[in-house]
């Protein structure tokens, strides 16, 4: 059984939800980034989203934009990200999703992207700017092996389109909690609940919710409705604010543990 499926099943047995942690690969540098990821893994992150830095992240807010720029100062490319996945596999067996804009994948080579990702130990990919209509140009090149394409569903996505997206997905669905870029505030849990209800009516896939979730309270509120909760900008903000602090790695670990404590429905 693949890692994603296994993860969601194990969590379900414990009445727990997935903590999905996003960090930009190579922020603030490759070594520190690997240490941060290790701290996340040791403190309960269930699924890792590893962001490929991009010069023009038009769907991201300022926090993730700056994280991309920091990583790009060290020339972190998709090739670097693959080698990081290999290193992460030595200390951790959770599902790893490569999170990228399309252009770095095109430049890497759309055809060899999937076999290389699998060889490195990744479980799937989420391409921010590759909607349903364009995604077959990538997936049609894939070998017939288990590798998840994680698709996004937005608050603007109508029900019939949700069904089409779900049918073309694998692994889990990423439900965007609000119209806006990553890291913007104003989480509205009642709206998420309505959107979730519609999405659940068209799919049995696990659904993870992201965008604008930053506190443990947010995590608990969303975990009550979803199969997973995605934290991205809040982790990146922690990195940015503690970038020169000797406790950076420890703080990342503590923060991960705090979020993880909030995903379990029995505890909260």
């Amino acid at each position, binding site marked *: 059984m693949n890692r994603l499926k296994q993860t969601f099943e194990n969590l379900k047995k414990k009445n727990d939800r997935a903590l999905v942690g996003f960090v930009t690969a190579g922020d603030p540098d490759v070594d520190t980034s690997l240490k941060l990821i290790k701290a996340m893994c040791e403190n309960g992150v269930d699924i890792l989203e590893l962001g490929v830095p991009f010069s023009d992240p038009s769907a991201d*807010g300022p926090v993730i934009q700056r994280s991309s720029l920091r990583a790009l100062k060290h020339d972190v490319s998709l090739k670097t990200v693959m080698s990081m996945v290999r290193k992460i596999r030595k200390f951790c067996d959770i599902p790893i999703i490569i999170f990228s804009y399309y*252009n770095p994948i095109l430049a890497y080579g759309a055809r060899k992207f999937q076999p290389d990702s699998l060889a490195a130990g990744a479980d799937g990919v989420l391409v921010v700017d590759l909607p349903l209509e364009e995604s077959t140009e990538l997936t049609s090149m894939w070998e017939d092996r288990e590798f998840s394409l994680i698709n*996004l569903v937005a608050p603007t996505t109508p029900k019939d389109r949700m069904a089409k997206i779900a049918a073309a997905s694998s692994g889990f669905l990423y439900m965007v909690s609000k119209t806006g870029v990553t890291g913007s505030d104003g989480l509205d849990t009642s709206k998420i609940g309505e959107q979730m209800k519609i999405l659940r009516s068209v799919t049995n896939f696990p659904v993870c919710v992201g965008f604008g979730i930053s506190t443990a309270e947010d995590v608990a509120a969303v975990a009550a409705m979803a199969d997973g909760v995605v934290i991205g900008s809040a982790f990146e903000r922690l990195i940015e604010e503690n970038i020169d602090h000797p406790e950076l790695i420890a703080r990342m670990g503590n923060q991960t543990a705090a979020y993880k404590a909030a995903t379990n429905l029995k505890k909260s």
Partner: protein
Amino acid sequence: MNFDMNDHSKNYPNAAGHFGPYGGRYVAETLMPALIELEAACKTHLPDPVFQKELSLLLKHYTGRPTPIFFAQRLTLSLGGAAIYLKREDLAHTGAHKINNTLGQTLLARWMGKKKVIAETGAGQHGVATATTAALFGMECKIFMGVEDIKRQAPNVKRMELLGAEVIPVSSGTGTLKDAMNEALRYWVSAVRDTFYVIGSVAGPHPYPFMVREFQKIIGEEAREQMMEIAGRLPDLLVACVGGGSNAMGLFFPFIADKDVEMLGAEAAGTGIESGKHAATLCAGSVGVLHGSKSYVLQTPSGQIQEAHSISAGLDYPGVGPEHALFKDIKRVRYTAITDQQALDAFSALCRLEGIIPALESSHALAAAMEEAKKRPKDQIILVNLSGRGDKDLGIVGPLL
């Protein structure tokens, strides 16, 4: 490639918004429903005779169309070759071809019931044109502009503000047009339900390259008729500058099926392609995805978008419209690159010989046309799209000339 030039408008883009391997809709899911809605609105309203009538009356009485074609006699004589004619888009209201598109898009926004518009701008011409038509229709208007461009195009910032628009400085990335477009996309994602995004070139996700071409093709349609009246025949060569490529597409498109009409697009070579400081996307770039469509882009080997460089803010863009990428591949249009210095020389020549101050963008087209004119016999006709006037550039050219 299976390509029917006589039936180009019917085949391209296809239903998915692709121009051969280019174009498409590479955007976040949040924007997809808005693009689908816009595409449906284009299909419904653009062919509507009432919409077309309203637009053509505005183009005539508000914009001042048709813009004239002028024979640049002294310039022609000074070069000793082919005759150079100028399509005077610089005489359109607001001083550039940009208004053709913004008038069309804001009118469409109104027909769709949207009351707010946003736009990105580089040189400020598209921003001014959007602010203008937003004022005309009483719409709320926000213009995203890079901080570098705000510095070098200060008069246009003032104009937009006078017209009631809010100019939002963009300091992310390189603070130029590409970053303004990123920021406009970010804003649009958050306000997509009631806001219409007026993209200024034949770039961006489908249906923008198609829609902008539809609103700009009036340049070429008028030019065909005017050249028949003036010279009794079509020109031998069309020349236009290419940043994103809207004025070039507007001039070229109605001539696509005329196999005897050559076409030349002039990109910005900045301080020279070999210097690495240029904006010659088609001449020196490679295939990639930027701002929602697949086309040629300036990028590093690992797919990071590179900064473009040009003396002309309107050409200072590392991408280009997807239909131009197709035209390059099938060799329907030839693309060349003109340096800052060549553009400045052409700028001076037109000022002194014809009493016309051209935009630095259009000066690239002019420079390419002047090179061609020298090589061609006197009985040939070159038509240059003089896409804008140069008043906005006086601060830049002043210290250099």
